[in-house]
């Protein structure tokens, strides 16, 4: 009974995090983007700096009619948002936010492989949406999504493999247990590759070619309305949380901090994740969109060689210090 209660409690906590954190990132994006562009952003809803704007948005989405185009493949079209969103919920289960058994949804032996594998499944949602919409812009968006994923999954995997080599384990809590502060300069190239490749996998600007609104309307999500469209947006923000959390755990030492790491480890994790999420938003406002050939070139000629060099460096240092 106690075991079942424990599991239920963990699932509940992860679910609440899954529902609230993406919204917080969304609201932060509203405000940060607005201030960086010299405007105010939403200011009225809720009174204080428009904090209730997201609730208003949610109500708006829920009120809209759920339209499925006549020519679309109905079942696939309706299934796609769930396929896009659910993997991120599963990934959150495996991310440790503090030391010990109590601070992770589920300890997995092959945690790194689990998170990368399941994140890759999420992209299937975009592909299904792009194909099933019976719309040429959607299909183009789906194609670009697939091309981007094929290009960026390899450097992401290699960068994660470098950390796993350094720690001698593929379990996420295990990697954190093995972490020392000097891993930060040691793995910095890997961290860069992982973060950039993750951004590309999430299709966040400057890698938002698949949803380039000035060319193909909104890519794979063009035909979606109402709640299903909101689910895709939620998947994007959940993806930001997952990517920032993973970068924190793999490269930035997770719950380790310069001081106070004993009781407040989870605070360090959240702080680092929040800073990275801010960087994601910052990049969106700063850089123009990369063209498709630039996207491919960046991955194959820069990120893949960099990640291979990082693996070589990791191997050499690992042999030297043993």
């Amino acid at each position, binding site marked *: 009974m106690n075991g079942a209660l424990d599991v239920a409690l963990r699932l509940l906590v992860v679910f609440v995090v899954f529902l609230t954190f993406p919204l917080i990132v969304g609201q932060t994006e509203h405000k940060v983007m607005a201030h960086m562009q010299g405007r105010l952003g939403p200011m009225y809803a809720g009174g204080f700096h428009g904090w209730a704007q997201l609730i208003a948005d949610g109500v708006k989405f829920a009120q809209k009619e759920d339209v499925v185009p006549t*020519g*679309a*493949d109905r079942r*696939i079209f309706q299934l796609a948002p769930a396929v896009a969103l659910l993997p991120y919920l599963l990934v959150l289960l495996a991310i440790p936010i503090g030391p010990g058994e109590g601070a992770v949804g589920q300890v*997995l*032996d*092959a945690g790194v*492989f*689990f998170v*990368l*594998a*399941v994140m*890759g*499944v999420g*992209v*299937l949602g975009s*592909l*299904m949406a*792009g*194909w*099933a919409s*019976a719309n040429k812009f959607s*299909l183009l968006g*789906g*194609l670009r999504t*697939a*091309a981007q*994923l*094929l*290009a960026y*999954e*390899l450097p992401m*995997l*290699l960068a994660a493999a470098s950390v796993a080599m350094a720690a001698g*384990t*593929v*379990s996420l809590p295990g990697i954190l247990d093995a972490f020392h502060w000097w891993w930060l300069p040691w793995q910095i190239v890997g961290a860069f590759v992982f973060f950039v490749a993750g951004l590309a996998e999430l299709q966040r600007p400057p890698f938002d070619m698949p949803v380039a609104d000035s060319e193909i309307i909104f890519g794979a999500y063009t035909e979606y309305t109402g709640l299903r469209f909101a689910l895709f947006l939620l998947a994007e923000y959940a993806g930001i949380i997952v990517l920032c959390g993973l970068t924190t755990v793999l490269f930035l030492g997770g719950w380790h901090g310069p001081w106070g790491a004993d009781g407040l480890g989870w605070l360090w994790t959240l702080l680092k994740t929040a800073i990275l999420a801010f960087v994601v938003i910052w990049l969106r406002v700063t850089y123009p969109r990369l063209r*498709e*050939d630039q996207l*491919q070139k960046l991955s*194959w000629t820069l990120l*893949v060689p960099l990640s291979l060099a990082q693996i070589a460096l990791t191997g050499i240092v690992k042999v030297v210090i043993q």
Partner: protein
Amino acid sequence: MSLAAAAPHGFLSPNGVEIAFLLVGLVTFGAALVTVTTRQLVHAALWLVVTLGGLAVEYLLLTAEFIAWVQVLIYVGSVVVLLLFGLMLTRAPIGRSPDADSGNRWAALAVALAAAAALVWVVVDAFRTTWIDLHGPAAGSTEVTGASLFQNWVLPFEALSVLLLAALVGAIVLSRKAKAETTGTPTVPDARRGRAEKEGAR
């Protein structure tokens, strides 16, 4: 199948894991059948996702966690995406394709049955006396898998690497040749190369 039913108490009193294994196996088998019989091309690819995912669940139930996640990573995350990419790039109609059939289907069925029979026979024969304790420490953890791969199976592993390297070089040569003959779309060689390199990384 004999692996799952290999608990010490025999075949006639299955426990929960064994029942789950059997049910997931049935779902996987059904999805595989739909994959090869459906007339809708993209649906076939999506049913393939269910099939490969079902296999991953079977690995999980047999405590081979590492293999299960690698299965999802490589097959669902990369191979199926590549498949969908290829379909969308060439022809992916919504609805049935009446011509999505082959006159070779009976020959294909015969080959599939022969291959399945050979595999089942070899596996049953080879692992007749190998029991997996589903409730003890995981027999297929990353550490165990890695140790056995790089201690007992290094030679096949390296031979496979060379094979994949050859495939990689071959893909690059083919794509260069196609480029020299016709100025084809630049994305196709990219995708091919992506597949080959991913296989190489495996």
